[in-house]
């Protein structure tokens, strides 16, 4: 058992939580403004694919991330238009976006790379760098900073979000719009404009989370590589009561569970001495999500107007 609890578990947790944090904090902006964002999964895929494709062509991971943010923001805007302008059911529309990304990356990669869904491999030095590569660190300490810059930035984003939400006018208005859009309107705030901002921001952040998956954690894009992370991020957001720091902690919890199961593979054995079948290990993050959601939803208080399109004249 001791062989599991090593430093590598910590780093593994950081690695696995990072995309969740970006997506969940993105989701926070949308949901706090009152728009349910089920499409985090699809937006992450948008970011992942775009980052991989653009990085392959430009050889720059920064261009890749930038493009990922723009692409995901575009689709988030699409979602926003459907939900805000057309007052669609937000869960259905979000599901539509997710389904779009079951097929769109495959068609595009088929056209660009003549493949059935994956992008070509990107060489190591063109991927998103770790802190150890960016900062001048002595070799013996390098292993401690073997953390992606994206993970480090995630931490900053959480802090920034906390500040924005509670100490700026934008944050105040965002929260008001999500709790009681009529009151915000009566106070002279452009409710829908604020909601558009929240949803597009969620795209930008989820896009970075996706980019990390393809060009930070791995070196290419494969079909459906998010494997449900967008939904897990949403669960973390609910578990974290829609608050930045608590949401981040929830993501770390899920990342930890994920990291633990990966370490367990090949180490923990059945009583018979055989390995635990891989499928059971695969199931664990999803079952953990279900259990966590069941246990904590009762204590979570969602933004008051979450999921209700704002219609003045009704």
């Amino acid at each position, binding site marked *: 058992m001791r062989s599991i609890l090593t430093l590598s578990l910590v780093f593994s947790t950081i690695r696995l939580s990072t995309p969740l944090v970006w997506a969940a904090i993105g989701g926070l902006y949308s949901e706090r403004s009152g728009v349910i964002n089920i499409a985090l999964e699809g937006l992450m895929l948008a970011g992942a694919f775009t980052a991989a494709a653009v990085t392959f062509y430009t050889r720059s991971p920064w261009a890749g991330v930038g493009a990922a943010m723009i692409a995901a923001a575009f689709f988030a805007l699409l979602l926003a238009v459907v939900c805000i302008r*057309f007052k669609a059911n937000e869960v259905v529309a979000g599901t539509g976006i997710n389904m779009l990304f079951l097929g769109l990356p495959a*068609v595009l990669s088929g056209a660009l790379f*003549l493949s059935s869904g994956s992008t070509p491999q990107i060489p190591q030095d063109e991927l998103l760098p770790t802190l150890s590569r960016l900062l001048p660190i002595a070799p013996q300490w390098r292993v401690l900073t073997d953390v992606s810059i994206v993970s480090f930035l995630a931490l900053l984003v959480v802090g920034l979000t906390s500040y924005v939400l509670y100490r700026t006018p934008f944050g105040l208005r965002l929260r008001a719009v999500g709790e009681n859009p009529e009151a915000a309107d009566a106070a002279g705030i452009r409710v829908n404009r604020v909601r558009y901002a929240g949803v597009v921001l969620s795209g930008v952040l989820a896009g970075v989370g996706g980019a990390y998956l393809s060009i930070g954690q791995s070196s290419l894009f494969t079909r459906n590589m998010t494997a*449900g992370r967008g939904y897990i991020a949403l669960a973390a957001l609910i578990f974290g009561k829609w608050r930045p720091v608590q949401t981040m902690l929830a993501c770390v919890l899920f990342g930890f569970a994920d990291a633990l199961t990966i370490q367990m593979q090949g180490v923990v054995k059945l009583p018979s001495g055989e390995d635990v079948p891989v499928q059971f290990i695969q199931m664990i993050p999803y079952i953990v999500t*279900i259990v966590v959601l*069941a246990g904590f939803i009762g204590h979570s208080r969602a933004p008051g107007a979450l999921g209700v399109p704002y219609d003045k004249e009704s």
Partner: protein
Amino acid sequence: MKVLRDLLFPSMAVLCAFLAGALIVALVGDSPVETYRLLLGSAFSWPDGIGYTLFFATPLIFTGLAVAVALRGGLLNIGAEGQLYVAAFATAWIGITFANLPAVVLVPLCCVAAIAAGAVWGAIPGLLKARFGSHEVINTIMLNFVAVALVGYLTQYHYRMPGDPIMETTPIGSGAHIPRLGAFIPGLPARIPLNIAFLLALLSCWLVYVLLWKTKWGYEIRATGQNPAAAEYGGVSIRKEVVLTMAISGALAGMVGINEVLGYRYRYYDGFSDNYGFTGIAVALLGRNHPFGVVVAALLFAVLQRGGVPVDAFTQLVSKDIVLILQALVILFVAAEAAFRRGGRG
């Protein structure tokens, strides 16, 4: 007037989706005209076009009904995929374990297994919502992953034919086979997998219609979906309705197993579902959550699915994933047109 609106708006949604899809095809570098010709053209030949289209429509009718019933009850069932996998495996398991029973017992038993397994897998998120209030969207999606893993495990470790490189189980007993429609329709060869499950799908449509609009149970399901506070006031137990609705939904999705295992492959074949669960969402929305609309929408998507094969084969750059994109666009446009459906002010 209402009927006109019910026909017009879905048609507009489909049209818009096709236009947007054409744009994407053009962007990718292929000819939209050629792609659509392949996509839509191959469905109408006899016997292969029509036979395969109706065969593809069968699981879509089941999952479309499943999602439609859930939506009528105010729930979004994204878990049809997991429910149908669990049900398909259950039905194969019965067919394998009791292979020696005569058909008159085995076939109904297998069908019951499919329905029951689907109902249970659907009831789980229902119970979670009723008891804990956790949203069925996330839970059903999580259970999809769990179902696929579970069924994969059982197939790989316990039910695979030794030496078989394909992830599939041993065959079911011959008593569990249900006849193909080729046995009854002249001109339809038996190699086309269209089987009596298709007729079962049509029957299910009618049964769902009767259930929702002609029975007290359906009234309670629809009332709960419309306004849970008012339903509760009217004496309906919301918790019971949530579980019941999800169970019925899961049962309908589970019937896909009957078509697939008893009528087509005669065994459980891992990964057999071509996104039937997700397509079911598009089918239900396009069919405006009405059984008869579901049939029409299922046929449309079956046509697209049938067309995906030649698109894959005969175009340079576009793959059959364009079908997935078209479905997603349909969902988005149908969701958006809800704005026009909201009628007079109260």
